[in-house]
Structures are given as C-alpha cells and as structure tokens.
C-alpha cells in the first residue's frame, strides 16, 4: 500500500486579500507571541493568534479556514490591544469568518447562533430573545439546555414573552439588503 502524500495548497495572495485595505498590518507581525500569551481561549484553541498570522502570510488558507481557532475567538480584543505592531488579529478573524463556508464540529453552533440572532434583528429591528432562542435550539438540535431556567428568567423579567416594540424590522431589513448588494 502506498502512503498517501499530503499536498498543501498555498494561496500566496491570501494575506494580501485579507489585508486589502492595509488596515490590519498583517505583514508587520514580529512573532513575539504577546497576543497568544493573553488570548482568552488559549487553553482550548488549536492555532494561537500569532500562528494564525504566520499561516496567513504563508498562504495556508485552507488550514486557517477549517481551524477551530477562527470560531473559538471571543473577539475580546486582547491580542490587538497588546500588539506592539498594531496587527489587528480580531479584524482578520472576522474577515476569515465572513469567507468561510462552515465552522468545524460543535462550533457550527456559534455560526448558527450568529445567523439566528441577525435574522431576529432583521425581522424585528432588535433581538427577540425568546423566539431566537427557540429557533436556535431547533437548528442546533440542542433542545433542553437552560430550559429549566426559563420560568425563573421570565419571572425575573430577564426577557419578554412578546416581540420587541420599536420601529420594527422594516427600517433594518433594508440595511441588510443594501449592505449585501453593495458588497457584491
């Protein structure tokens, strides 16, 4: 049996496409790893912030896009705040998320939640917590967690049974549509 060889696809322009406006300063990275030492999710991630940066420069687009790190990032801005070279790693991660097809394993829940939450904002102008939680639970097939807590949270007024009042979604759904059209 022949051993299967691994072919790594290199996308040389990956980092330039990510930093198309020069705002991310990706090429300025010194690999000092100050970002990684303060990363909130350093204990459970697969690639650390300084490694993501290096891999982006090397053109390892597929490896980065399929990593857990991209979706585990909590957007806490610690890496960016501490970077001596102002490399904007959270903004880089946001751009990679926007171009990724899907998130790996149970991290797909993060993406499902983002989509469901935005759908609520689009429809109601604000988050309608009860409905968005119900839709999230169905889509993520995670039906039972936190359900026992629902009565207490309703009694304590943590969220409302009724949809949010306000301008409604009409003003906001237009923003979504126009933003999508402009992006293309």
């Amino acid at each position, binding site marked *: 049996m022949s051993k299967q060889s691994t072919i790594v696809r290199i996308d040389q322009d990956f980092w330039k496409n990510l930093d198309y406006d020069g705002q991310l300063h990706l090429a300025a990275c010194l690999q000092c790893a100050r970002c990684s030492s303060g990363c909130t999710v350093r204990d459970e991630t697969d690639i650390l912030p300084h490694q993501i940066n290096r891999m982006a420069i090397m053109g390892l687009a597929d490896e980065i896009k399929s990593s857990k790190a991209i979706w585990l990032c909590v*957007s806490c801005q610690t890496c960016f*705040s501490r970077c001596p070279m102002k490399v904007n790693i959270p903004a880089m991660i946001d751009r990679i998320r926007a171009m990724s097809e899907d998130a790996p394993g149970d991290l797909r829940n993060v993406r499902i939640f983002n989509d469901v939450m935005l759908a609520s904002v689009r429809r109601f102008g*604000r988050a309608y917590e009860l409905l968005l939680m119900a839709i999230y639970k169905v889509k993520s097939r995670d039906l039972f967690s936190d359900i026992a807590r629902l009565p207490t949270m309703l009694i304590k007024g943590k969220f409302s049974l009724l949809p949010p009042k306000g*301008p409604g979604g009409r003003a906001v759904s237009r923003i979504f549509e126009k933003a999508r059209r402009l992006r293309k």
Partner: protein
Amino acid sequence: MSAQCVAQSLGIELQKMPDWTCCGSTPAHSTDELLAIALPARNLLIAQSAGLDLAVCCASCYGRLGAANIALAQDHRLQESVAEILGQEYKGNVHVRHLLQILYEDVGISEIRDAVTHHLKGLKIACYYGCLLTRPRELSISSDPEDPTIMEEILQTTGAEMIDWPYKTECCGANFSITRPSTVERLVSQILRAAKDSGANCLAVACPLCQINLDLRQQDIQERFNLPVFYFTQVLGLAFGVPRKQLGIGKLMVSPDEVLAGTTTGTPPY
C-alpha cells in the same frame, strides 16, 4: 432601570432614543463588515438628528458604536457606502460615551459623594470591566487599559471596600453564553475565583451581558462562589437611598441579601 434612577439623582437628563435598533454585536461583525458598521450607524444618525451625545450602558454596544465612529471617520469610501445604505449622511460628530465616563468626567467624584446618603458598609466589591470597555486601546474608557480604576473611584464614594484584584479586564466569554457553555463556565469560574481569593464578597460590572453571564452561570458551576453581581448603578442607587425595587435588586440571580445585611444604615460614610 438603576441607571435611570442614578442619573436622575445626579441631575443628568437621559432621553430614551426613539426607534433605536440593535447594533448587531458580535454576530454582525463576524458575518459582514459593512453591516457591522451600518447597523450601529443607524443609531448614530438618530442621535445626530437629535443633536445629542449617546450614553451607553453596555460594553458591546459601546464597542460597536465606537468602532463605527472610528471606521467612518477614517474611511471616506465606507462613509459613502453607509450614507447610501441609510439614505442620510453621518457627519461623525456624535460622541459615544459609556455611563461610567459620564459620571466620572461630567458629574465628578465630589458631586457623587455629595449624593451618598447610605453607607454601604460590609460590601467588598471587585470591580469588573471585562473586555470591551478598555479594548481596543482607542476606545478605552480609561487611560490605562490594563488596570482601569474609574469604577473603583466612583464606587468608593459609597463607603464600600474596593478590592484590588488581577482579573478585572479578563473576558467572561458572554457571546458564547448560549453556544459554548463549557468555555463560559471555565472563564466565569476563573474570574469569580480570582475575585473571591482577593477577598471580594460581590462584583460590580458595567455591562448587562457581563452581568447576566457572571450571575446566571454561577448555577452551572460546581464550585459555589455565591458572589452577587451588581450593575454598578445598582450599588450607587443603594448608596443614594433609592428603593431596592426601583434598582431591580430582586432581579439578580445570586441573592445579595447576605452581603447587604450590614449596609444601608441610613447614615452617610463621612
């Protein structure tokens, strides 16, 4: 609700923004850069029309509104795109300010001290800032993003003890509260343990997401921390003698009755 009571006590007139809509928070900036600017910019435009600054109570709203302000000031093309989306031009003159800044810079510590009528004796408060009040640097509410003290300076007026502790700007992972409970439980445990080990008997926060995350998730953690998590204006309101009900004290998941037992004796601390 406690923020409104406290603002009123200090003579700040807060106007509720008509027709505000959600800033999109992390789901928006994880999905679409342009949308993540346009959503908060809609609110900036409402404030612009009213000719008012924006007072914000949430760290994430503060971060997104502030990020939109910065991005729109720097990027002319983005400004044009957003004007096209919203049908109105944003001139970039709305200041986005967190309530902590308004109390600290506009009202001032001595005015706040004058409003204190009840000594919050026995409260040992760990002030928690989380991530987005001091990060990124250009949006930091404090000149020292690694060791802000503005909440301590404000809450010290109540006579409560301020705890010096190392986790005040760590992230609590609130945006994973629903999707990754295991991550959140780990982060919340670390923060609460650090507060407890440093001698705190409660926390004060300046973001409703941090509040509910640190408060609600205590039930899921095996270790019993039993640390009430106040929104910082609830603490101020107690010291101003505002009735608990108006401050929403009863809405807290971890009951603060025990730590408040020795307080509110009706006399100011000095």
